Structures are given as structure tokens and as C-alpha cells.
């Protein structure tokens, strides 16, 4: 069949036609249609230059711009750059409607028949699981309790992340932790309950990570290096960096641990719970190989488990090894994917000594993951936050760690709902990418991002300059902060701390009694 394939390709090339190839069903049945209004097209060829997927080309004979539609991924870069707005991207012809065999399933089947491989993808779970954020509504003050006007009265978004003492003695600076007196545990100070999610240099571009770092510094929050190490150029941003120690230990060194504001042990990722990180070799450029300390062009596949952590006791050893290495000056975070029994796992993590528990829901994004895992493994972040918060409260250890919710936070209302369910703060990844132009075309794993967000290829990198990323990310945080303040004000609350775990401020709409119980909220109307 390989020979057959070669022949078919050769004939297609020779005749300049697109022949049916039984080993290329994906290209026989393109997913998208690029409609170009030829009356408006001025043949400036901007779209041809901008398309990194070899979809758009110029035909000199007809003097027309044309498309190899099978290659279109609907990133809409051509549409955005077109000076006459003559391009429309639309879904192409439908398969015969079938509720059980949805188009994406047929397409995946074709793709696997073509290649026999594991189908990779980027971004978060895009399947139609119910979103609990969309089934929760926020309370507001009316008559019996006054709302607060955030434009005229102070409103506090500052969040301290880390372990809190059980209490304070009368002597200043002496805190009681685990029944013993000592200095206050280290906390990181965040001007808003929003941090940038772990996205490694490699998964994202140099410029985008620099933009994250600049925005984090300017807005008083934090960016997270992901598991890809910290590029030497980003050490000046160390006070706003959370560094990750993942199973691959990419780029981990003593300097790396000492540089950061906090250290995060990555156990799992919401997009692919139970498996390690993937950075396809195509994306491992010289700079990335330097930062990760791996060969150029080699796949960076981190192991599924941390091979020195097979139990809570092992985790405790690593947490305290890092605390010793950093002289107990930095909070240590443990990031897990939201899975069944997450509350018991989180309880173990807190008892192991973690100062921060990060829970990453199944909508969380990724630079590359098998689609089958992204779409079918893990649980929604909303129920995970509620369950973890409740369990830690019941056990009387909630103060010993902050909870950061990650995976699927889309707007400021999601932030407010996550905090009301019990999170201290949230990580935003995809939302930050969208702010700088991402259209969620899910091609991050290919290293060809047309918007320059997830590619380090020399010709694509300048499409997102660091200063533009910085400005747009700062705008996002500024906008969300204003919105969160407004929402706090209308609830009659003047500090984000008063909202944390305040589930009375939420009501469920269209949820079953069991779901309401799991979320710990009441039915709307009560």
C-alpha cells in the first residue's frame, strides 16, 4: 500500500490534480471551506504569505489566489490579515447526519486509518460535556443588604498564596503552625486572584512567555514556567515566576529553584491526567534545547509518573527536599489533574507539606496531547474545587494550603464562581492566549501557529511581539479586575477573601440534587 500511496501522490503531482487516495482520507474530505470573494480579492498575496499550513497559494495562470482546502485548520489568520476582508472560512459539506457518529469521530477514524498513529491535538477538551460554570448564577444585594460601589469605595483583590498559620501569638512575627511557634510561612503576594497558567517555553513562543512575564510583573501577579525550564533571558523576572519541577526535570537546577518566587511540583495536567508532557521534536529549537537541557530536534516526552514519587510519603520527601534547597523561603506547590477522589489526594498533598494545591480540570489546555486522552479523562474543575475545599475544611487543614483552580477559566465570572466554590486563585492559560489573538484552532502541537503564539519558528515568532503580548495581557487582567470588583460590589462584599468558599453566593440552575450536593450549592430560588 505504501507503493500505491507514492504512486497516487506522484500522479496527482504530475497531473496537477487532487486525486482520491485511499491512504489519505483526511485530505479527500476537507473539513473547512475557504470562500474567497473574487470580486473583492486584489491578489495582494498577503494571505499566501501568512498561511503557514500550505493551504493558500497563488496561481499565476489564472491570476487568482486559491486554496488547498484540506490543509485549512480554520485559524483565520488569512481572514484577519486580508486588507479587503474577502475571505470567509466555513465548515465544508456535512456527513450524513448521525447523532452517534458525529463528524469529528468519522474524521478521527479516517485519520487513524491513514496513519495508524495516536491523534495529537492542542488546547483543551472541546467536547460537549456540560459546563457547571454555566449552570451557576451569582447572588446580588437588594434592599436588605447594601451593595458596594467599587468606583467609590475601596475593593480588595489582593490574595496571599501559601500556607497560613493557625494563629498568631502576641509577639509580632511569631506564628503558630502545626502547634509550634515560628516565623510566618512564606506566601506570595498577588494583586488579584488570577495567575498565568504553566505554559512552557517550547509549548509557547519566546515572545509570548516574555509577554506573560512582563504582564505579571506590571500587574503584580505571577507567570509559571511550565515544565520547560526558565530561559536565561527571563531570570530578571524571577520575582514573578513560579517554576515547575515535572517528571522530566527539564531545565531544573539549583539556580532555577532559587530564582523563583515559588516552586511547583507537577504531578498531572488537566488535559492529560496520568501521562507525561509532550513536546514534539519539531518544536525543539536551539533556544529550547538550551533551556530544557535536551538535544535539538528531540521529542521531549516526560515520564507519566514522577519516578521518585509513588506515594504521599515520597511526595513529602520531594517537597521537603525543595524546601531545604530553597531554605524554607518559598512556598511549594503541588499541581494535580482533577480526577476521581481528588479530595482525598489533595488532603494527602496538604499533609505532605505542600503550601499550594493546584487542581487542573479536564478543560485545561495543552501544547500537545493525544486527543483521546484530552477528550475523555479527568473531571470538571467546578466539582473538584468544591470537593477539595470541603474536604480540607472538614479535616481542619484548609488554612495549611491555598487552592489554585486551573483548566477552563474563560472569563471573570468563572473566576468569581471558582473563588466562591473554594479556590484562593485561578490559573488562566487559554484565556491569556485568546487575549493575544489565539483563535483556539487547536494546532499548538504542530509548531506552526499562524498567530506566533505557540511557535518558535523564525518566520512565525515575530507575529506576536513581546510588547504587544504584554499590553494585551495587561489589558485582560485590568478588565477582569474591574469586572471582579463590580461583581464583589454587587454581592455586598469588599474583599475577595470574603468570597472564598462562600457558596451561599452561588445558586444552581438546572442541576440535579446530587450535582447540587457535590458542588455544595443550593438550587436557584431558595
Amino acid at each position: 500500500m505504501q507503493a500505491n500511496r507514492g504512486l497516487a501522490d506522484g500522479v496527482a503531482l504530475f497531473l496537477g490534480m487532487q486525486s482520491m487516495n485511499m491512504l489519505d482520507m483526511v485530505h479527500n474530505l476537507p473539513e473547512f471551506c475557504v470562500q474567497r470573494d473574487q470580486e473583492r480579492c486584489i491578489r495582494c498575496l498577503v494571505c499566501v504569505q501568512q498561511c503557514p499550513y500550505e493551504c493558500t497559494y497563488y496561481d499565476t495562470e489564472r491570476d487568482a489566489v486559491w486554496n488547498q482546502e484540506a490543509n485549512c485548520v480554520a485559524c483565520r489568520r488569512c481572514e484577519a490579515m486580508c486588507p479587503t476582508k474577502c475571505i470567509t472560512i466555513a465548515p465544508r459539506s456535512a456527513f450524513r447526519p448521525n447523532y452517534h457518529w458525529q463528524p469529528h469521530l468519522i474524521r478521527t477514524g479516517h485519520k487513524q486509518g491513514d496513519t495508524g498513529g495516536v491523534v495529537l491535538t492542542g488546547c483543551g477538551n472541546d467536547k460537549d460535556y456540560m459546563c457547571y460554570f454555566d449552570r451557576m448564577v451569582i447572588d446580588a444585594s437588594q434592599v436588605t443588604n447594601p451593595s458596594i460601589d467599587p468606583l467609590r469605595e475601596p475593593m480588595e483583590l489582593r490574595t496571599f498564596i501559601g500556607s497560613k498559620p493557625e494563629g498568631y501569638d502576641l509577639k509580632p512575627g511569631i506564628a503558630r503552625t502545626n502547634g509550634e511557634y515560628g516565623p510566618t510561612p512564606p506566601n506570595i503576594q498577588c494583586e488579584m486572584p488570577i495567575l498565568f497558567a504553566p505554559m512552557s517555553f517550547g509549548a509557547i513562543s519566546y515572545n509570548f512567555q516574555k509577554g506573560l512575564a512582563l504582564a505579571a510583573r506590571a500587574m503584580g501577579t505571577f507567570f509559571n514556567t511550565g515544565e520547560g525550564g526558565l530561559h536565561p533571558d527571563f531570570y530578571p523576572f524571577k520575582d514573578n515566576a513560579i517554576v515547575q519541577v515535572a517528571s522530566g526535570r527539564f531545565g531544573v537546577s539549583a539556580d532555577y529553584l532559587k530564582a523563583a518566587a515559588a516552586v511547583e511540583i507537577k504531578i498531572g495536567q488537566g488535559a492529560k491526567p496520568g501521562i507525561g508532557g509532550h513536546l514534539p521534536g519539531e518544536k525543539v529549537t536551539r533556544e529550547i534545547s538550551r533551556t530544557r537541557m535536551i538535544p535539538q530536534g528531540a521529542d521531549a516526552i516526560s515520564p507519566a509518573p514522577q519516578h521518585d514519587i509513588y506515594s504521599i510519603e515520597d511526595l513529602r520527601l520531594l517537597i521537603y527536599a525543595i524546601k531545604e534547597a530553597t531554605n524554607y523561603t518559598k512556598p511549594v506547590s503541588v499541581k494535580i489533574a482533577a480526577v476521581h477522589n481528588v479530595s482525598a489526594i489533595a488532603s494527602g498533598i496538604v499533609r505532605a507539606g505542600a503550601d499550594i494545591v493546584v487542581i487542573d480540570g479536564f478543560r485545561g489546555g495543552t501544547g500537545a496531547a493525544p486527543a483521546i486522552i484530552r477528550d475523555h479523562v479527568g473531571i470538571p474543575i467546578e466539582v473538584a474545587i468544591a470537593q477539595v475545599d470541603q474536604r480540607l475544611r472538614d479535616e481542619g487543614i484548609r488554612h495549611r494550603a491555598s487552592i489554585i483552580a486551573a483548566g477552563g477559566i474563560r472569563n471573570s465570572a468563572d473566576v468569581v464562581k471558582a473563588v466562591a466554590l473554594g479556590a484562593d486563585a485561578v490559573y488562566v492559560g487559554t484565556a491569556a492566549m485568546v487575549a493575544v489573538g489565539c483563535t483556539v484552532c487547536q494546532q499548538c502541537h504542530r509548531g506552526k501557529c499562524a498567530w506566533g503564539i505557540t511557535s518558535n519558528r523564525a518566520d512565525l515568532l515575530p507575529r506576536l511581539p513581546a510588547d504587544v503580548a504584554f499590553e494585551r495581557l495587561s489589558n485582560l487582567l485590568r478588565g477582569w479586575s474591574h469586572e471582579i470588583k463590580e461583581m464583589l460590589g454587587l454581592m455586598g462584599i469588599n474583599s475577595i477573601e470574603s468570597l472564598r468558599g462562600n457558596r451561599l453566593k452561588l445558586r444552581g440552575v438546572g442541576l440535579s440534587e446530587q450535582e447540587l450536593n457535590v458542588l455544595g450549592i443550593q438550587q436557584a430560588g431558595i
Partner: protein
Amino acid sequence: MKRVYPIESRCIGCRLCEVACVVAHSRTLDAINSFRLEGLVFNNERAKGFVDPAEASRAGRPRMTARCQVSPSQPYRISIRCRHCDDPECVLACKNGALYKDEEGRVLLDEAKCAGCWMCIMACPSGSIQRNIHRANVPGVENNGINHHCDLCADLGSDTPACVRVCPVAALVFEDRDEAADEMKSPQQQQEAVRAH
């Protein structure tokens, strides 16, 4: 004197500067009209690199280049245009006196005087002069186009040239630089200055 400077590290090679240039110098100031109705269309040879110019004319429509050119050779991208040199070789080479340096320092063209001899093209050290095949000044002689180079959007009613305004990643800047001082610097220093920018 203010000049347009490209920043190579920022350029994404999209060529919107070329589109903006053609539109800004068109009669209708509309992208679709200026390209489709006024006949001011790119030379389509550029799509495939260098192809027989006759092929372009076979395509039916007379085509015209923008006054700036984005280098088509990947991965190097840069938008090039007339430098408006302090001692312009083209002005010296112009036998008709069509090219002149105005009081602000811009190198401009008196279209009525240009005979289309292309000595300016031969003389230009930066290769930033094209042929404007839409203008003929010598009746009866087969015309291959008169001088066509960046005029910094002189007399087009805006302080900033169109290409600088349209660039989506701010890879073009319009500013007054001390070029004499720049030339004194070593190439390494110059590169650092560009990077710092």
C-alpha cells in the same frame, strides 16, 4: 530629516506595507478600487520569484509595484524603500533633472521631466527604485516606465507614511535619526542598537 526605518527583527513579511502604498497613491483611496479598477496591481512575477515579465502582461492587467518592497526571500524579511540619501546618486545620474532633493531633504520626482532612461535605477545603491509602467512621457516610443520610488507620502495629507501606519507589528518607524553618527558605529554596535529597539 524623518525617514522610514524598517526593524528587521519585528517584520513578519506580510506585505501589507506594499498594499497600503498602492492604495495611498491611488485616485480612489480604496483597496478594492485602486487594485481592480485603477489597474494598479502588483506585478504577479513576485509570487514565484522572478518569472518572465511578459507572463505578467499576458495575465491581462497592467501591473504596478508598490514604492516599498518586502524582501521575498525567507526567512529574512524586511521592507525596503528609498533611503532619501543625503548625497543621492540617483539625482546625480538623472540627465533630465527630473529627480531633485527638496528643501526638507526628500528625493522627489518631477514626473513631467522623466524620460524613463532608468539611469536612476542603475545608480541607486539600495536597489529601491522601480519602474512605473503606467506613465509614458515620450510619445511614440515604446515605454518601459518612469522612475517610481518612495516619496514618503509627500503631499498625501498625512504626517506619517501609509506603510508605517498600516504595519500590524510596528516593524516600520518614521523618525529622525542621526545617520552620520550611526555610520560611525561598528556593525556590532549598530546591530545592538537595532536589537535594543
